C-alpha cells in the first residue's frame, strides 16, 4: 500500500460490488488511512449505481477499461467468491485468503454464499459480466463451468499442478488445460463406533463379505449394523462410487456386471435388515444423525462430520477406507473438495493478481494449515506423510485419498447425466425389487 492515497480510494470504491459489500465484513482489515471518507465515497457510488443497476453498468470491475497496459500496480483489491458460508470454515478461509491478499499487496473483498446457491450465482454473474476475480468451485462443477468459457486456463499465468494427487488434477482439467488448483481434498470412508464393535466382538471389516457379516452381527434391537445414503440425489451417487469403482465399475457404461455386483451388495444389506430401508431417503447428514444417536454401528461418511461427532460425549469412533470386494484389492473412493479458479473477467492485470492468490492458497504451508483446520487432506502428495504424523485421526481418510478418483475425470461436463442414471438405477434396485443389472441397463438406456 505504498501507492498514492487518492488513486486507490477511487478505484476500490468503484470496484466494490453494490449493496452487499457495505455490510462491513471486509472493512475490518483495511489499511486505508481514511476509512470514513472511503465509506462515504462508496455510499454515494452505491446510491448512484442503484438506478442503472439493471444495465449492469455498476455491476463490478470486470467491464472496467482494462488497466492492463498500465501494469499490475493498479490492482488494489480483488473480489473472491466461495461457498464457505458456515463456521468454522468461513473464518478459516477468510483469514487464509486475507493473508494471501496481504502477501500479494491487494485488499480482498470476499463473499461467501450457501453451497446450493453458488452455481446459480456464478451463472448470473456470467451473464451480467460481473464474475469475481477469484472463484471457488466444487470440483465436479469445474469442467462444466470451464466448458462455458467463463474460466481462464491457469497455464496462462504459469501455474502448474505438479506433484498433486492425479485425481485432483483430473477434476480441475478440461480439454487438456488446467483451470483450477485445489489445496485440500476429502473423500468418504467407513466410520465405525469403536465401543459397539468391541462389545459385539466384531473386528473392523475390510472386504464386502466381512462388511455383510459384521453389519448383520451388529444389528440389534433398533440399531442397524451399517448406514449409508442411497438418496435420489448426487449425494447418493457419491456414496455408491467407492463400491462401484473398487469393483471395477465405470461411469461411462454403468450396465456392467461389476457395477451390478456393487449394487447387489447394497440391496443385500437392506434386504437382510443390516441397513434401514430408509437409506433411500437419507442424506449424508441424516446418516450421521443415525450414527451419532447410536442407531447405526458403522456408516459411510466424510471427515466434515468430525465436528458433529466430536461434540457427542462418549462417542468413540475411528475411520478405515471403504471395504473392498476381495482381500488385496484397492479401495477407490471419489475425491471431494473445492478448487480455486480465475474467471475470464477481461482484465489481465487483475487476473494475474488473482492467479497469485490461487497459488498462495495452494502453497505447502496453506495446504497443511487448511487441511488441519478443515478436516481435509492436502493434495500435494509429498505433504501427506508430514500431515498424518501431525493429525493421526486423518489417517483413514488420507489412505483413502491416495487411491481416490475424481467424478469428472472420465466424463467431464457429462458427469451430471451419468450421476443421475446411477442413482436412478440404485433406487429402482433397492426399492422396487428390480434386479441390479436390469435396473442399470434401463437407467443407462434412459
Amino acid at each position: 500500500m505504498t501507492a498514492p492515497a487518492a488513486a486507490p480510494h477511487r478505484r476500490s470504491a468503484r470496484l466494490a460490488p453494490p449493496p452487499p459489500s457495505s455490510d462491513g465484513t471486509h472493512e475490518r482489515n483495511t489499511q486505508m488511512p481514511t476509512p470514513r471518507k472511503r465509506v462515504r465515497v462508496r455510499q454515494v457510488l452505491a446510491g448512484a449505481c442503484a438506478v442503472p443497476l439493471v444495465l449492469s453498468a455498476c455491476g463490478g470491475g470486470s467491464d472496467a477499461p482494462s488497466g492492463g497496459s498500465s501494469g499490475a500496480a493498479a490492482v488494489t483489491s480483488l473480489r473472491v467468491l466461495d461457498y464457505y458460508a458456515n463456521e468454522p470454515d468461513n473464518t478459516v478461509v477468510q483469514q487464509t485468503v486475507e493473508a494471501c491478499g496481504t502477501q500479494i499487496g491487494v485488499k480482498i473483498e470476499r463473499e461467501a454464499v450457501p453451497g446450493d446457491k453458488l452455481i446459480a450465482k456464478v451463472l448470473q454473474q456470467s451473464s451480467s459480466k460481473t464474475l469475481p476475480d477469484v472463484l471457488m468451485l466444487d470440483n465436479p462443477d469445474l469442467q462444466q463451468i470451464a466448458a462455458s468459457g467463463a474460466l481462464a486456463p491457469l497455464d496462462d499465468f504459469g501455474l502448474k499442478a505438479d506433484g498433486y494427487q492425479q485425481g485432483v488434477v483430473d477434476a480441475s482439467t478440461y480439454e487438456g488445460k488446467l483451470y483450477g488448483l485445489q489445496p485440500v481434498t476429502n473423500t468418504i470412508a467407513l466410520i465405525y463406533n469403536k465401543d459397539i464393535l468391541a462389545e459385539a466382538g466384531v473386528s473392523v471389516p475390510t472386504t464386502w463379505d466381512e462388511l455383510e457379516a459384521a453389519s448383520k452381527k451388529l444389528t440389534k434391537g433398533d440399531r442397524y449394523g451399517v448406514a449409508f445414503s442411497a438418496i435420489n440425489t448426487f449425494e447418493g451417487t457419491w456414496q455408491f462410487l467407492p463400491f462401484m469403482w473398487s469393483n471395477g465399475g465405470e461411469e461411462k457404461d454403468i450396465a456392467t456386471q461389476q457395477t451390478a455386483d456393487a449394487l447387489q451388495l447394497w440391496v443385500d444389506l437392506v434386504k437382510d435388515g443390516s441397513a434401514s430401508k430408509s437409506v433411500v431417503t437419507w442424506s449424508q447428514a441424516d446418516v450421521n444423525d443415525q450414527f451419532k444417536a447410536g442407531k447405526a454401528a458403522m456408516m459411510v461418511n466424510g471427515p466434515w462430520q468430525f465436528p458433529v461427532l466430536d461434540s457427542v460425549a462418549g462417542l468413540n469412533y475411528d475411520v478405515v477406507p471403504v471395504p473392498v470386494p476381495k482381500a488385496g484389492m484397492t479401495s477407490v473412493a471419489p475425491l471431494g473438495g473445492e478448487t480455486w479458479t480465475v474467471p475470464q473477467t477481461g482484465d489481465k492485470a487483475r487476473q494475474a493478481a488473482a492467479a497469485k492468490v490461487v497459488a498462495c492458497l495452494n502453497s505447502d504451508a496453506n495446504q497443511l494449515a487448511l487441511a488441519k483446520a478443515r478436516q481435509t487432506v492436502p493434495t500435494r502428495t509429498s505433504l501427506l506423510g508430514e500431515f498424518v504424523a501431525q493429525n493421526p485421526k486423518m489417517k483413514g481418510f488420507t489412505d483413502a485419498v491416495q487411491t481416490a478418483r475424481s467424478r469428472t475425470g472420465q466424463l467431464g461436463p457429462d458427469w451430471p447425466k451419468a450421476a443421475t442414471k446411477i442413482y436412478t438405477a440404485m433406487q429402482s434396485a433397492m426399492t422396487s425389487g428390480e434386479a441390479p443389472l436390469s435396473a442399470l441397463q434401463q437407467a443407462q438406456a434412459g
Partner: protein
Amino acid sequence: MLPLARRPRRRTGGRVQHLGRALFVAPAALYMLAFYGYPLVKNLVMGFQEYTTRTFFTGEAPWVGLANYEQVMGSPIFGRSLVNTLLFTAGSILGQFTIGLALAVFFRRTFPGAGVLRSLLLMPWLIPLIVSGAVWKWILDQDNGALNRMLRATQLTDARPGWLTSTTLALAAVVMVNIWIGIPFNATILFGGLQDIPDELYEAAALDGATGWRAFRYVTWPLLRPVVNVVLVLGVVYTLKVLDIILGLTKGGPANATQTLATQAYQLSFVEFDFGQGAATGNLLILVSLLFAVLYLRLSRQREQG
C-alpha cells in the same frame, strides 16, 4: 377486471379522457408485461433453444426446434411423470375437496368452540411448506416415525410401512400430505359459499320434509355449485404445479415413484442445468394448467351471468 369492462360506458369525454383512462391502466399493464408476459415468452422461447451453462457466459443459445420436446417426451421418465402428475392432482383434489366440504358443512352449525376450531383448521395454511415437509418427513419415517409408532401401539399390525421408501406407498403418502395442506383452502372458500345460502331456504325445505342429506342434495349443493366450480378449478391449477412439498418429502423418489412434471422440470433446469429441456417440460405443464385456467374463466363468467 371483467366487471369493470362490463360497466356501461359514459359518453361524456373525448380523446383526453380516453388518454386519462389509459394512464390509469398503464401501471398494471406494464407490471403484467414485465413480470408475467416477459417470463412466459422467455420460457416459451427457451424451450426451443439449447440453453445451458454455456449460454450464460456467451449469450448464445442455438435454436434447436423441437429437439428439447422430443428428448423430454421421449425419455422413459416422461410417461411416469405425466401419470404421477395426474394421479397426484386427482387424488389431492378429491381428498381436499371432500374433506373440505364436509368440514364447511359441519361448521355451518353454531356450537361452543366452533370459532376456535375453525381457526385451528387454518393451521396447515399458516405453516411454511418447507417446515411442513420436514415435519411430515419425520412423521412418516419408517423406523422411528410417529405414524408407524402409533400403528404399532394399536397392536393391530406389526408391520412398519415404508411411507416414503416404498415405491407403492410414496405417491399415496405425498398425496396425503398435500390433502392436509389443501383442506383449509377448500374448507374456507366453501364455508364462505355456504354463508350466502339463506336460512329461509332450509326452513322451507324442512317444511316440505327435506332435512339432513336431502337438504344438502336439493338445497345446499345446487346453490353451492358456482363456488364448487371455482374451488375445483383453482385447486387443480395449484396442485398441478406443486413442487416444494414433493421435494421436501421424497425429491421425486424413491425410484421416481413421486416424480411429476414439476419436479422433473426442476431437476432438468436446476440440477442438470439443461435449461432448454427444463423449459420444455415447464411449458408442457403450463399447457395443462392453461386448459384448466380457460375452464375457470368460462365458469366464472357463467357464474356472473347466472
